[in-house]
């Protein structure tokens, strides 16, 4: 318990050092923007992203049959992760014609390929699981 309290104070000290540094390093305008992004990230997750995931989960339960559902869930999760990482590149906002070697790729095409590969692999894993369960069921019947 004592060690825990020590670490809690240590962590609070480290965080306070960061807060102090942040306030000292930036103008009021910049600090306001940083705080907005800081709080915004947590709020958007907790009250937009997470509820949205719950709604998608409910829709999946309603419209996808139980067998492929876990695979659809997994495929959607990986797709969502790829989408999050791809968004800043897909937006094209960072591209400057004055420096064509920065962000040089066709990100729309790359993203489409990546998502395609994810669903092909998800399908293959799902099919393998389906074949295995059929095989097992057959074996059980023979016995």
């Amino acid at each position, binding site marked *: 318990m004592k*060690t825990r309290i020590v670490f*809690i104070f240590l962590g609070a000290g480290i965080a*306070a050092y960061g807060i102090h*540094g942040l306030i000292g390093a930036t103008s009021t305008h910049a600090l306001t923007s940083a705080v907005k992004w800081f709080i915004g990230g947590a709020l958007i997750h907790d009250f937009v*992203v997470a509820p949205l995931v719950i709604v998608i989960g409910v829709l999946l339960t309603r419209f996808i049959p139980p067998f492929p*559902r*876990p695979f659809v869930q997994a495929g959607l999760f990986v797709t969502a992760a790829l989408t999050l990482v791809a968004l800043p590149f897909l937006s094209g906002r960072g591209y400057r014609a004055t420096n064509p070697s*920065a962000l040089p790729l066709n990100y729309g095409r*790359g993203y489409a390929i990546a998502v395609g590969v994810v669903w092909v692999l998800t399908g293959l894993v799902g099919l393998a699981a389906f074949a295995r369960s059929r095989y097992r069921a057959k074996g059980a019947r023979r016995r």
Partner: protein
Amino acid sequence: MVQRTRTRLSRLDPVARIPWQKFERLRRGPLREGAFTSPLHSERVAARLGLVLGVLFTICFLTGLVSHFMQHQPGWLHWPTTPVWLYRVTQGLHVACGIGTIPLLVAKLWTVYPRLFAWPPARSLLHAVERGSLLLLVGGSAFQLVTGLINVARFYPWGFFFTSTHYWVAWITIGALVIHVAAKITVIRRGLSTPLQQDRRPGSLSRRGFLITAGAATGAVTVATVGQTVTPLQDLAVLGQRHADIGPQHLPVNKSAVEAKVKRDPVYRLTVDGPRTVVLTLAQLQAMTQHTVTLPIVCVEGWSASAVWTGVRVRDLLDLVAAPHDAEVEVESMQVRGLYRKSSLHTPHSRDDRTLLALRLNGAELDLDHGYPCRLIAPNRPGVQQTKWVKRLAVS
């Protein structure tokens, strides 16, 4: 005795005296008991994801400190020149671990989401502080990952200066992480030591399946980006910010000459200021002993690419002006504005045989975008400090 102290403390604790049972009718929606039924909302899953996240956050924090102190070098630090690939590895890891963390953080937040609606909201002052620190942890983690990623995509939709804000928020996040681990250590231990177990409900992911999915998502975003650092994998990096072969002379550029407002100067002179001052024309630089090295350009944004550089050793130039051996050298660019128009060269970099003012790249005259007529290239140093369009070396 302990019991009595506790009772006395709880009498002083305003949070512990809140009569939550009176607010029972507020417990609606997600606050209801048993509102979340999925077996994925489990401390076993949370502890396993948390362990991996803790490791990745620590790597990001430490490699971030390396990068910070290389660019703001305190007097006591002598960053080595060997191995030349060290910064390539630390900064590549920093960005790769950051990107790979994104799906794991999402999975972790999903797993512990019901805890947001825990009842009662706070049992004691300490409990309230601990829950409050989660805002710092969640806010800080999301901030670091989101702004880091968007910054890598060279897009700055905010009003703060990325570098220093990312640095200070790292301290906030790591501090909050220390608090979190200390506060949850019992739960973490219990979660890790309990097997995931068969919780398979037909038609939904098992706990094991969920962890595998999170790992697969990390794998997917890593494969899609890591080739920007690990060049053999670059053709898989469909979301890479750079391709090591795309750019003038088959090398990417971080800031082009147009962006830096630099033009070819027909009467270019290099000034070396020290105990003596020497002014050299490009022809005189070309007439000096030329050396060839293979060194990477390593960007703070995580991409890197190796190239063959030919030029004059900086130490030879320092000897021309009889600079003291341990002198710090300021390298100044023709670029008029910009944060990175100057850089400092300390020992051992200033005296390393591989530190050049490069005149040629991959066998041809340096392209204007790469710093024509000459640029600094030193081993194990961030790209922003490999000053281009060098017009002056000043020994202090």
